[in-house]
């Protein structure tokens, strides 16, 4: 038996408890502990992924209690892929966390790190667990950490966090209610076990109610339009370090839960034939793609623009899932990784900008492209990727989603994907125009330095990562995502 599945959340959890202790000794130790824990988690995730590809799924029985009674942690290609995305992006976010938090939230430096680690532990736990109730526990760990982290932001942050808390708790309650229904219906909480016992009772009302509850819960958590209301404020007013941590991965894990439950625990046909949940998700997502982009165009604040862009981008994932075909799912999963990198990069840039100038208004950006050349070079790469310009990663998400939409023959989805790419261009080029083309240098003699190396390095790394993900997407798709997707739909 291998321990790898549990070794992904464990170091994060451990580090979360060690950080306050380290903080008591010396503040300088805090980032070191946090990064060590996060790096260990990422290393185990990568190791696990390699092992899974080579040898097949890894199972771990927590406390040696055999499932279905005991809690089981599973690394299969899907969870291993997600674990890598969460922990690697999380690691980079923590690297960025230190300088940004020291500047923006100096008095919450230690607790900020601890809670950030808890958040990552919760997210990675959600990914590796094979138990529906255990997933709820991790979901709450992650969510509570997120509310707390958002709340330490700007003046408006507590209100944003409160709204997030209300809607998020609603989501959490729906989820646990749904799981309760499933438990009543099947007498089990282990995903594989529940899957087996569910098949004969798909027509049961309790099961259908459970499915609806879980779907709504996760739609709330992933901010799927029109349940996105908590997101724009939360991302806008959170500290930059926090936005750079939450925005790339938090909603993706909720999307992962949807995939896990509706393509894994339930057979895909259930959420289409018994109750049309997947089609509903896909249509809402198509609407959300357009809505988010249009709202992004209307924003004057860079962070708020990025927040609405997230509403649109997470809907890409929803669309790929809702299409209910392998190519769509490949597009969705690839976009999870791509968008994690892109959005992290973009929020890092917004944070660096705030660090240097204190302002994040789009109209204040004139000429900044030359004052912070590296930071905004990274921004440009990420922005072009968001628009879907090859060979950046975003192009390939679009490509697979488009192939999926063509396969199901839905012209509306095709139109939404293509139109969104134009709308993305509209709001990103507005920024790029300000950055580079507008003359801001002449009368404005103010000198703004490039972001400090500690912030610049992770940003640039992500920008390079976006290009690498794009060029190597075929490797990811053939080795990991295609087997996952065709496996899930074959049943």
């Amino acid at each position, binding site marked *: 038996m291998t321990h790898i599945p549990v070794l992904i959340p464990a170091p994060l959890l451990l580090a979360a408890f060690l950080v306050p202790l380290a903080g008591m000794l010396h503040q300088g130790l805090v980032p070191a502990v946090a990064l060590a824990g996060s790096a260990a988690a990422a290393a185990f995730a990568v190791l696990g992924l390699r092992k899974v590809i080579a040898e097949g799924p890894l199972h771990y029985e927590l406390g040696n209690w055999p499932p279905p009674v005991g809690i089981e942690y599973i690394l299969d290609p899907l969870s291993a892929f997600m674990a890598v995305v969460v922990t690697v992006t999380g690691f980079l976010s923590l690297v960025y966390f230190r300088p940004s938090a020291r500047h923006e939230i100096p008095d919450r430096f230690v607790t900020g790190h601890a809670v950030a680690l808890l958040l990552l532990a919760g997210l990675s736990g959600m990914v590796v667990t094979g138990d529906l109730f255990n997933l709820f526990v991790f979901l709450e760990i992650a969510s509570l950490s997120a509310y707390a982290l958002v709340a330490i932001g700007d003046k408006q942050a507590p209100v944003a966090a409160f709204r997030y808390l209300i809607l998020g708790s609603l989501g959490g309650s729906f989820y646990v209610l749904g799981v309760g229904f499933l438990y009543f219906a099947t007498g089990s909480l282990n995903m594989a076990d529940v899957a087996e016992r569910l098949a004969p009772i798909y027509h049961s009302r309790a099961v259908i109610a459970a499915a609806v509850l879980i779907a709504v819960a996760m739609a709330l958590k992933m901010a799927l339009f029109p349940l996105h209301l908590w997101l724009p404020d939360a991302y806008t007013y959170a500290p930059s370090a926090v936005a750079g941590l939450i925005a790339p991965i938090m909603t993706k894990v909720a999307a992962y839960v949807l995939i896990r439950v509706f393509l894994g625990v339930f057979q895909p046909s259930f959420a289409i034939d018994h109750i049309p949940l997947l089609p509903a998700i896909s249509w809402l997502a198509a609407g959300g793609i357009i809505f988010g982009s249009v709202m992004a165009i209307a924003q004057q604040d860079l962070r708020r623009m990025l927040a609405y862009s997230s509403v649109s981008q997470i809907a890409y994932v929803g669309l790929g899932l809702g299409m209910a075909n392998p190519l769509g799912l490949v597009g969705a999963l690839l976009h999870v990784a791509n968008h994690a990198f892109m959005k992290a990069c973009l929020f890092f840039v917004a944070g660096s900008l705030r660090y240097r100038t204190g302002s994040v208004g789009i109209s204040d950006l004139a000429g900044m492209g030359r004052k912070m050349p590296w930071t905004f070079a990274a921004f440009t790469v990420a922005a*072009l990727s968001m*628009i879907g*310009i*090859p*060979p950046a990663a975003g*192009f*390939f998400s*679009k*490509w*697979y989603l*488009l*192939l999926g939409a*063509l*396969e199901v023959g839905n012209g509306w989805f*095709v139109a939404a994907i*293509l139109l969104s*790419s*134009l709308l993305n*261009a509209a709001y990103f*080029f507005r920024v790029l*125009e300000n950055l*580079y*083309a*507008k*003359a801001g240098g002449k009368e404005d003699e103010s000198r703004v330095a490039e972001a400090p190396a500690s912030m610049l390095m992770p940003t640039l790394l992500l920008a390079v990562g976006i290009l690498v993900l794009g*060029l*190597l*997407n*075929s*490797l990811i*798709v*053939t080795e990991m995502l*295609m087997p996952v997707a065709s496996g899930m739909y074959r049943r």
Partner: protein
Amino acid sequence: MEFVLASRPLLAVLVSLLAAILIVVCGRWPNLREGWTLLAAVTKFGLVFSLLGDVLGGRTPGVTLFEVSPGIALALRVDALGISFALSASLLWILTSVYSIGYMRSLGEEHQTRYFASFAICLSSTIGIAFAANLLTFIIFYEMLTIATYPLVVHKGTPEALASGQKYLVYLLTGGGALLLAVAWVRNIAPTLDFQPGGILPAATGATELALLLILFVVGVGVKAGLMPLHSWLPAAMVAPTPVSALLHAVAVVKAGVFGLARVTGFVFGADMLQRSGAINPVAALAAATILLASLLAMAQDNLKRRLAYSTIGHLSYIVLGIVLVTPDAWRGGLFHIVTHAAMKITLFFCAGAIYAKTHRENISELDGIGKQMPVTLGAFGVASLGLAGVPPLGGFLSKWFLAGGTLAAEQPALLAVLIISGLLNAAYLFPIVYRAFFRHSDQFTKFAEASPLMVVPLCLTTLLSVGLGIFPDAFFKWFSLANETAISVLQVAVK
């Protein structure tokens, strides 16, 4: 066609990407920076030229890099069609680079580093388009070209430039979207995305599907090709510095559009499928309308560059017309016109730029008597104008001659009439400029004062090229043979 593995096509693409990096790094030392541009241009041309022998020898050099989507590799193949486009673009880049240095320096333009770097990336994309072995590779470079051109369009940073940039993006990205959809569609129905003479679409494809697919493709590549009604970004883009208008908006970008159309019709559809789609006549009609309308609109422009832009729109549609008629002569003429029009139009833009750099005049009505001051420039302008109007023995005559033959072979005499009328219209909007320059008197231009030799020499060389192409269409670069070979390979397979 025997395939040979060669890294030169890849190097030809990469050399200017590398140069773009070096240009940015050396931005503080202008002479060194421009050195990289020139070195990259010469190297690129050398690499492309070195492939010519292989292609003429019946071989297809190429390289397959790695998969960018399962089963679809990023791959380059050099065939007759590709190398003919790559040769013209890379040859003219050398001259444009020299010209750019003269132009940008004599006007003291800002952001020259960005300008030269973007230019280099554009040329990488263009060669990538020319050598792309499959549709996905093609679209990757096609979209890169769209983005790399944008900084050049908005170069001046004025509200007008920004507005033009927005217009440019809306048109080009919409076209890119249509193209992407078309490529994804082909991926769903065809066994491969690799370009093959005679097409790759399965024989069972229905006529409606073919027609829809062709519409998407025509929108996708037609935007860059300035096919009406998708053309209006092109006159707007004239706000860019003149070397950009000269190389990109007369040669590389817009020709990437017509080149793409040739790829799609000849190597994705094939003549049979094109016939079955029933779209030949509509597209040909669109092209004919574009030819006439653009010429009429050109007459209405007082701004010299805008007049040339409308002229470009018209001439691009000559090529579009030749391609969609799918007769051997029409293809010969159309493909040869890619090269001849490139030489002639770049000359005209070079002249316009030289005039602007020297006198800051942009409008034709202000050019009375300028022939006295800049006789070489305006002389070159006159020669190229004759060529565009199709006067023998210039290159323009030859391509038009074959195009005319093509219209007859396709039994479309109305289109022949369009070509003839268009020739007259060309004369009507270009000759008056020459007339004003040499035969109207004004007191403002008296002394002989040409622009910098960095600008005058390139424009003389392109003039020579325009003339040479008419008299020796096959000298040095075998452009005519290449056009001929493409026409045969595409149409023989299809017609049998």
